[in-house]
């Protein structure tokens, strides 16, 4: 393995924005990885990490908007962003189809994130050469 080996990363984020530093560190890592010519197979949000995919997060205008920044980064680089369905439903992160199925008053999933099962994580571990986890640090 040499310095020039191109890696394919799966990034798993389990810490929530505005609660942990995990989504920030993961984004700065992902940008550096792409800039260095590596690929990101997918980003998987698990546990409290699913809050990163909220379309309603509204931090003060002088603070970084991590959900916005992550959404833009994924769209610009055609990287799939997947929130685990079991984590998301418990925590109130819902797409339109779950809204209908559970007859909920609204949906709040930010584009381009999708909601899917843990199988997406399993596939990531199989498809990529590196799986990195970004947990809460406390």
């Amino acid at each position: 393995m040499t310095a020039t080996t191109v890696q394919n990363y799966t990034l798993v984020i389990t810490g929530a924005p505005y609660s942990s530093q995990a989504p920030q560190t993961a984004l700065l890592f992902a940008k550096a990885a792409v800039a260095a010519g590596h690929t990101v197979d997918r980003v998987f949000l698990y546990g409290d990490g699913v809050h990163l995919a909220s379309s309603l997060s509204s931090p003060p205008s002088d603070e970084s908007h991590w959900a916005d920044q992550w959404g833009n980064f994924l769209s610009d680089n055609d990287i799939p962003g997947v929130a685990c369905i079991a984590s998301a439903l418990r925590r109130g992160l819902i797409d339109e189809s779950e809204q209908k199925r559970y007859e909920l008053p609204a949906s709040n999933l930010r584009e381009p994130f999708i909601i899917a099962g843990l199988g997406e994580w399993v596939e990531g571990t199989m498809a990529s050469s590196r799986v990195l986890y970004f947990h809460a640090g406390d």
Partner: protein
Amino acid sequence: MAQIHTLHILNKAPEHPRSGECLRSLNPGDALLLIENAVLALATPGELTAGIPVYALSPDVLARGLAQTARKASLVDFPAMVELTAQAQKVISW
């Protein structure tokens, strides 16, 4: 950078139980990368590890005002962090 067997990425403060677990799990040939809260270990007395290379993520070190006291680790930026994860045969996120 030398060949790394396992890169251990630690983001927990020194008081966190997982920090001690991580330090006890290092083997010859491994490397340790301190990020987020874990860079606070640079401010505490004593050595972190014996004979294992220690890196620390510089944006996290600077944010915590520890640039002057960071003699226990080599500072790396995000591109160098990516390089470490690419070079290591295995990465563990503690």
